[in-house]
């Protein structure tokens, strides 16, 4: 509670309209929170994660977003959500929440709603934008026992909780384009150990002068 209050006060004190802070698409996507009326998009490919994100900045540091994450193109995680820049000074800290679906086929079928809370943090260091993402994602599905004729005998909910994380750095190429490289640490079925992955990504944006 105290942490939330502190973050809210810090967010209220931040100057979201400062163009330098609203900033570059790479900062917006990797550190979270687009500038007001800015559209930003990012895409990354890696092993196992491939991600596409689109987001738009609103007044007050709010940033609706839509994303699709895919693990080895066998597990798909489409989602929509909203981000809020909590701190936007030398360091930027953004909270994001999404709701969506987890879609995974055989041999471990899993189809059902999902939600994720995460924080993105980092700072601009010249053209670099080192970042850290930490989150928790939970998905729910229903296992079913049925007879040969299709009569359902019982259904049982199954939950899957995943700690998510990424660590890397962005690099600003031009005013509207940047790239990043990072490590991914999805922690599926915690506390089973994670198999780390890595990705490279590109970010772009438009609408900076609206």
């Amino acid at each position, binding site marked *: 509670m105290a942490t939330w209050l502190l973050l809210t006060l810090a967010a209220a004190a931040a100057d979201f309209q400062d163009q330098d802070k609203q900033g570059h698409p790479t900062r917006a996507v990797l550190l979270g929170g687009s500038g007001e009326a800015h559209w930003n998009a990012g895409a990354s490919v890696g092993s196992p994660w491939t991600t596409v994100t689109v987001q738009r900045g609103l007044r007050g540091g709010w940033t609706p977003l839509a994303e699709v994450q895919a693990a080895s193109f066998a597990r798909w995680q489409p989602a929509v959500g909203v981000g809020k820049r909590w701190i936007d000074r030398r360091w930027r800290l953004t909270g994001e929440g999404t709701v969506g*679906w987890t*879609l995974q086929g055989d041999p471990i*079928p*899993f*189809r*059902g*709603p999902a939600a994720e809370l995460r924080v993105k943090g980092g700072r601009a260091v010249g053209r670099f934008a080192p970042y850290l993402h930490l989150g928790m994602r939970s998905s*729910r*599905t*229903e*296992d*079913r*026992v*049925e*007879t*040969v004729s299709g009569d359902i*005998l019982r259904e049982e909910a*199954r939950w899957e909780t995943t700690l998510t994380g990424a660590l890397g750095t962005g690099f600003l190429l031009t005013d509207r384009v940047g790239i990043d490289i990072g490590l991914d640490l999805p922690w599926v079925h915690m506390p089973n150990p994670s198999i780390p992955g890595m990705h490279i990504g590109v970010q772009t944006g438009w609408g900076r002068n609206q």
Partner: protein
Amino acid sequence: MNRSICMLLLLCGCEGYVTVVQPVEILGTIATADGHDGPVRLEVYQAWSGDGGLRYPMRFIDASWVSTPGDFTMSVELPVEEGEGLVLYGWQDRDGDETHCAPGVDDELSGAAVISETDVPDVVDGDLVLDSPCVGATRLFP
């Protein structure tokens, strides 16, 4: 339009593992070779499971206790896409430790009845004779 709705439902529906089972009612009688009374642990196995080189016998399905030899009924659900057949196995707990032939015990009789190695009817007769001391299920089948 209908196809779009179907696609939406397919995308949004919750579905994890789907296990297709055949409910089977087992009606039978348990007898011991020496007529001894005492609780019997009854175990149900699918005779075979898996394919090709990974095929193996005696896939455990369910178990229950009956208070004494005699008539019994038991309901089980056989996962028909994962195995086939039905084998009954039982052993008598003579010292009350719920362990089959713990060290120092060598008189707990066991036995198996192969109901089917392929298709299983919805209702089966399963007469079981316990006549082999301290023999495990996989020693009795195949």
